[in-house]
């Protein structure tokens, strides 16, 4: 009996010692000045996993390419937040415990908005590739800017404003209607900005209708809109809405009206493969297009396809740029200061370097405005003969 206890005890001791060895290894790695640890938050399971995986692919492609160049090594710690605000907060705190220098994330707006106030208090440099809600970088009530938070994607109001400009100036529209979902913050943000801009332009909003997120029947709303026969109909929804609204708009008699959308439309044609005729002639805005003439963008597309077997979507491209912005800023901070990479002073210097970003990414040239939102070109896509055609920048 006693012998066995002794055996168990010695085994436990050996294990503890072995673990101690591992722990000391990890410590050695962290103190290495040639390596910087960053955190990545993304939903890899749950309803937003599609976006999370696209973003992760784009980020990892850039980080792998960067590390392959030698010199400074970036060590990413990836954590799944499941698209859930509670888990996002826990995982954010986990990354802080790991003493990361900066965080890329999160992917959708709600979890990102849940962690931004915490990150602001911690002076944690953060960049998101896809959280488009205006409140991600600016406190909606006080107007205070979260100076530590950046993004490489458009914000919701920007897209609504741009599409109103596009309808008025390029399409010569004088009357417009809007069909939006009041259950989706993205849709509301675009709708409000579109209407606001339309008022200043003199583009008359003849009718506004709304729908539920998972609605399947839009004929009622579309018939009401058809009665006003607007020049354009702005649909700030997602591709699963477009796939239903398109055919039903024909049923409702909206044949002369041009449909307009934003980056939520990406992937609509894949959903309407059998008959895309109902959205023929529509325009939508996106942050990334495959029909680029620039060599570095084409290179990015081929490298991405070689790595993952699928062409990059907008989220992957914006994530690639987000990683580029952050790592370039880290390099500049390392060159300019001699702070420890996990110190508060380094983080503050990094935030300053990030706001001074001026970089040529795969989604265009990116600089940040005073609200840490990117100033970059919008790509307009025209649906012609059932395929997406790059109409031009706007």
């Amino acid at each position, binding site marked *: 009996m006693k012998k066995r206890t002794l055996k168990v005890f010695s085994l436990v001791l050996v294990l503890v010692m072995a673990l101690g060895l591992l722990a000391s290894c990890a410590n050695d790695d962290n103190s290495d000045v040639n390596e910087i640890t960053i955190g990545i938050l993304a939903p*890899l*399971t749950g309803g937003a996993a599609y976006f999370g995986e696209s973003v992760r692919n784009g980020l990892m492609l850039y980080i792998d390419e960067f590390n392959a160049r030698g010199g400074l090594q970036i060590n990413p710690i990836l*954590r*799944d937040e*499941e698209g859930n*605000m*509670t*888990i996002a*907060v*826990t*995982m954010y*705190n*986990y990354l*802080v*415990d790991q003493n990361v220098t900066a965080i890329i994330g999160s992917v959708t707006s*709600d979890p990102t*908005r*849940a962690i931004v*106030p915490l990150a602001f208090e911690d002076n944690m440099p953060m960049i998101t590739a896809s959280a488009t*809600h205006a*409140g991600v970088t600016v*406190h*909606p*009530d*006080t107007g205070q800017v979260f100076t530590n938070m950046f993004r490489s994607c458009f914000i919701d109001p920007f897209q609504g404003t741009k599409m109103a400009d596009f309808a008025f100036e390029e399409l010569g529209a004088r009357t417009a209607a809007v069909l939006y*979902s*009041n*259950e*989706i*913050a993205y*849709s*509301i*943000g675009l709708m409000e900005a579109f209407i606001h801009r339309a008022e200043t332009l003199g583009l008359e909003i003849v009718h506004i209708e709304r729908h*539920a997120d998972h609605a399947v029947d839009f004929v009622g709303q579309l018939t009401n809109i058809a009665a006003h026969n607007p020049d354009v109909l702005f649909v700030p929804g997602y591709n699963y809405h477009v796939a239903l609204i398109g055919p039903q708009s024909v049923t409702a008699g909206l044949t002369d009206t041009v449909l307009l959308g934003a980056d939520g439309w990406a992937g609509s044609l894949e959903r309407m493969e059998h008959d895309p005729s109902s959205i023929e002639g529509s325009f939508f805005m996106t942050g990334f297009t495959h029909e680029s003439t620039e060599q570095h963008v084409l290179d990015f597309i081929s490298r991405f396809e070689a790595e993952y077997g699928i062409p990059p979507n907008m989220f992957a491209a914006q994530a690639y740029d987000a990683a580029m912005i952050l790592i370039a800023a880290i390099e500049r901070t390392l060159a300019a200061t001699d702070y420890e990479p996990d110190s508060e002073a380094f983080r503050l210097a990094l935030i300053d370097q990030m706001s001074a970003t001026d970089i040529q990414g795969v989604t265009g040239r990116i600089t940040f405005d005073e609200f840490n939102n990117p100033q970059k070109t919008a790509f307009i896509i025209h649906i012609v003969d059932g395929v997406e055609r790059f109409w031009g920048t706007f």
Partner: protein
Amino acid sequence: MKEFRISMPMRYIINSLLLVAFIVAGHLITQSGLLGRAHNANIVSVGIFIILAVSLNLSTGYLGQLPLGHAGFMAIGAYAGAIFWRSGLLPSTASVPAGLLVAGLAAAVVGVIIGIPALRLKGDYLAIITLGFGEIIRVIINNLDSVTGGAGGLHGIPRHSNFLIVYLCVIICCIAIHMLMKSRHGRAILSIRENEIAAESCGINTTYYKVMAFAFSAFFAGIAGALFAGNIGLLVPGEFDFMTSINILMIVVLGGMGSMAGSVIAASILTSLPLFMAALNEYRMIIYALMLIIVMLFKPSGLLGTYDFSLSRLLEKLIRRRIAAKSKVKEGEA
């Protein structure tokens, strides 16, 4: 031989001392930052889910009904508490408990309003109608833009859910439900679960007790909702959809319907999984599913069944064993 028993006052003293020790120790440990921020954050969300599970266990495990709208009550409490705190009606020290009370009462009132028509039904019919009510609450919140912020969410809620506040609520919730179940009213609630017709024929006003249990359950769900709001600082209606109700129900079923200790254990395990199994990446989801399947296959009544933990009972058992062993030794000597 007379069986050894710990007297009631002694039991109360032991239990309250242990609770005070738990709260003080927990508060000191979380404040000291010994565990790291991730575990502190996790402990707070575990506490919130314990309240949700224990309160749902009242209407599922003890009352024997199957309501699927728990997230709806949580939403009512979350928004009521958040709006109260944002309004700044009271100074900060009084504001926290007052906001929690407002949240609980708002949810309880809605619980009574929904409970009266819904509890006329049983089983799957009740499940469907409560599911419907839960969704109605979410849609109303979505459309009351001016009050709740709509889909854009309610932001800037003071984040004061720390270990102390959350676990005081956990303890109050557990004690209140425990005391309810040990009272005359609790026996009536249990009798409804066992056989509603028999209970009614014994003169128990089943509608009254069903609505009462339902309102109690909603009250604590409301408090949990307010703690949730105070933990995240941001509320969006999508957070309180039908899947949240299912997740809470899953905790109760896994822990054992009718076992408060089971709810506490299952809530702790399931809420902590994302943090503790993060290194397993996507395989985590397989383990999670397998765990549920295995428990349901080999222990369909849940981890603890209807067993409830009692510290005094455990102590009595240990002391009795000690006495028995001593008397045996004496016999041997003789």
